[in-house]
């Protein structure tokens, strides 16, 4: 039995007419296959991310049903103007990202670099606003743990922010801690994804600056775009579920 390759067929692939990109990995038959495999892989990864966040959304759903009054009261203490500002900031960041993908596709190097820089700046702005929101929660003793205080929910009239809101019974007021835990876990996990994204953005900006994505090879920009939009979309679910869903003006 010969040790050579037994399966020999005629060469079928036509020679590529254009110049092979340096980024083409040789285990792919064509660049098209490489690009499709990359984006398919990214979509699958985002699927795992959905399942990851899904666990927390499930916990939110469950406890919101169980401790509805606590969730209403706690949700009303979130800072809606900051949340709204952040939503706008994040959508703007996503817009620049989309422009960036377009700039890479039409091979405009400088435009791509600028779009990535803007994406990064707005991403950082989001985290900045988030910092002030967390700080506010710290000052109000709304960070779960030993310093957590339910005073605002048991005696709402003692505080300017909650004046006129119905008081919760102490045991229900305890449950606001669950809301704030979910708030910190969900927005914290989201912020962690933003931070990872921003680190990747620095790297991509540097590579874009070297001109790596301006010669027809755009897969990393495209795939990162998918990731960045995914992070946006997670926020677009978090914002209404955490901030808006129980928003009622004080009568």
């Amino acid at each position, binding site marked *: 039995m010969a040790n050579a390759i*037994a*399966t020999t*067929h005629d060469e079928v692939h036509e020679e590529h007419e254009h110049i092979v990109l340096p980024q083409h990995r040789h285990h792919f038959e064509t660049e098209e296959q490489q690009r499709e*495999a990359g984006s*398919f892989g990214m979509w699958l*990864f985002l*699927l795992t991310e959905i399942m990851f966040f899904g666990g927390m959304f499930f916990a939110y759903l469950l406890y919101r049903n169980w401790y509805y009054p606590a969730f209403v009261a706690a949700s009303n203490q979130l800072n809606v103007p900051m949340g709204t500002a952040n939503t706008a900031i994040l959508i703007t960041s996503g817009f620049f990202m989309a422009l960036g993908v377009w700039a890479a596709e039409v091979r405009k190097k400088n435009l791509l670099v600028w779009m990535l820089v803007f994406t990064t700046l707005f991403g950082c702005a989001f985290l900045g606003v988030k910092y002030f929101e967390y700080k506010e929660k710290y000052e109000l003793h709304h960070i779960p743990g030993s310093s957590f205080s339910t005073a605002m929910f048991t005696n709402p009239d003692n505080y300017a922010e909650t004046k006129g809101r119905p008081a919760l019974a102490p045991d229900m007021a305890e449950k606001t801690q669950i809301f704030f835990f979910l708030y910190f876990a969900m927005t914290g996990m989201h912020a962690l994804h933003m931070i990872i994204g921003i680190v990747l953005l620095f790297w991509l900006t540097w590579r874009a600056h070297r001109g790596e994505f301006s010669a027809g090879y755009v897969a990393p920009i495209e795939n990162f775009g998918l990731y960045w939009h995914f992070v946006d979309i997670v926020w677009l679910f978090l914002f209404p579920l955490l901030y808006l869903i129980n928003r009622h003006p004080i009568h």
Partner: protein
Amino acid sequence: MSTPISNTIVNLPDQSTARIPKKNYITAEDGLLSWLLTGDHKRIAILYLISITFFFFIGGAFAGLIRLELLTPQPDLVSSDTYNKFFTMHGIIMIFLFLVPSVPATLGNFFIPIMVGARDLAFPKINLLSWYLYLIGGTLTLTALVLGGVDTGWTFTTPLSTHYLNTHVITAASAIFVAGFSSIFTGLNFIVTIHRMRAPGMTWFRMPLFCWSNYAASILMVLGTPVLAIAIVLVALERLVGIGVFDPSKGGDPLLFQHLFWFYSHPAVYIMILPGMGVISEVISTFSRKRVFGYTAVAFSSVAIALFGFFVWAHHMFIMGVSNYSALVFSLLTMLVAVPSAIKIFNWAFTLQKGSITFETPMLYAFGFMGLFTIGGLTGVFLGSLGMDIHLTETYFIVAHFHYVMVGGMLMAFLAGIHFWWPKMTGRMYPESLSKLSAVTSFIGFNLTFMPQFILGYMGMPRRYHAYPPEYQVLNVLSTAGATVLGIGFMMPVLYLGWSLKYGAIAGNNPWQATGLEWQIQSPPLTENFTTIPIVDYEAYDYEWLEKKQREEVTTVG
């Protein structure tokens, strides 16, 4: 070319002239770094094979210690705390570090790209990253072990894991978190490869069933593992920061942890068994020289198992206070998931019917699988029915049931696959009679170990205790004796497979006369598998095509 002996299909080249091809994936590069930084799926598969074997024997050592303690009714070998640490380590290592990656990360990694006619997996670097993550997970597990162990059981049940234990829960939890990502990346790689990198002519229904079952398992890995990850993050946060998502005193619900945990960990059972079923399809077809009966049904039954597998998780919680109605629904769904598994077993049986069966080692293991998996699966149906479950939950009946599926099923399939593909991976044959002996030894040892446990469980011996009433001793002694035999059965392959690396007979390209693409290339394969990508113009398991091809080869050469 040697003439085949009548009772075997083994077709080895003339040993006096046969040589291992000079150029292959093993000799392509030299040095440790060329292995540690490789992108070649075959080398990564070998790295995985070495590491999972290492962890298998550590996990096995703990199994031995458990059985040794249970030799006598009195708690005389170790204290109860130590015993708890033993079975926890046994569970964690065997499940997360051996069974989950066993077939996919070794055999799947090696053969899926070749079977679909690709040069490598879609993302070689992510593949390598997955092995490093596995190693980090393994190291963290060993760290937890060395620092003094962990005693939550592999299930990390709250509030035990969050409130009542001061062992290294977080270290072990992060081990599982990291190892989980390793299996996500493996699954992701398989799915993309199977979707996007099939050779021309390799349609979905021309793929070997091994690819189908690994594809189904990959879906489970990709969708299930992240949920385990978040459940474990929440446990760690609860221990670190003390926040009460699972803590009833703060309004949390421990049952939520169970839901999240079993949402992964039940499908994980299918992550473990499905790739094994793929191996069995290949082996049964090859050694009965027939196309797998009902190819399409077997292919879709893998997908069906993956689908149903996601909707049965609450059967782990029948006695934990889920509502009667949901218990009813989950009981019904549990019975349903037995249907696609039964389809497979029946189809394999029909494949055997009127086949030209030969009894090489992989086939012996495959027969072991069919018998033992059937027992394991059917006792699963017992446990799925509510009344039986309440009697049998948390007894040795459960232990015996899942060992029949996991060890009797999956480990037999893994060994079948290792023997079946050993000639392809190394270019050399394993010693046939010794390996047959080890297959029979494992089978006997296995039944001797776990059959008594069914009876013990039915009589009411609870699991996870280090002492038991004296009237259970006879059966426990039998079980421990069986474990010893089983241990010998598992040690033997390591020794003779290691021996065969240097002294085994040269295997040639296709010692089994099998039809898969992997058997049409040299053994061991080249670094990028194919010099030219093949065009597939025949169905899977088409032995007539193979015969015709070989006839033509002879005429052109002669």
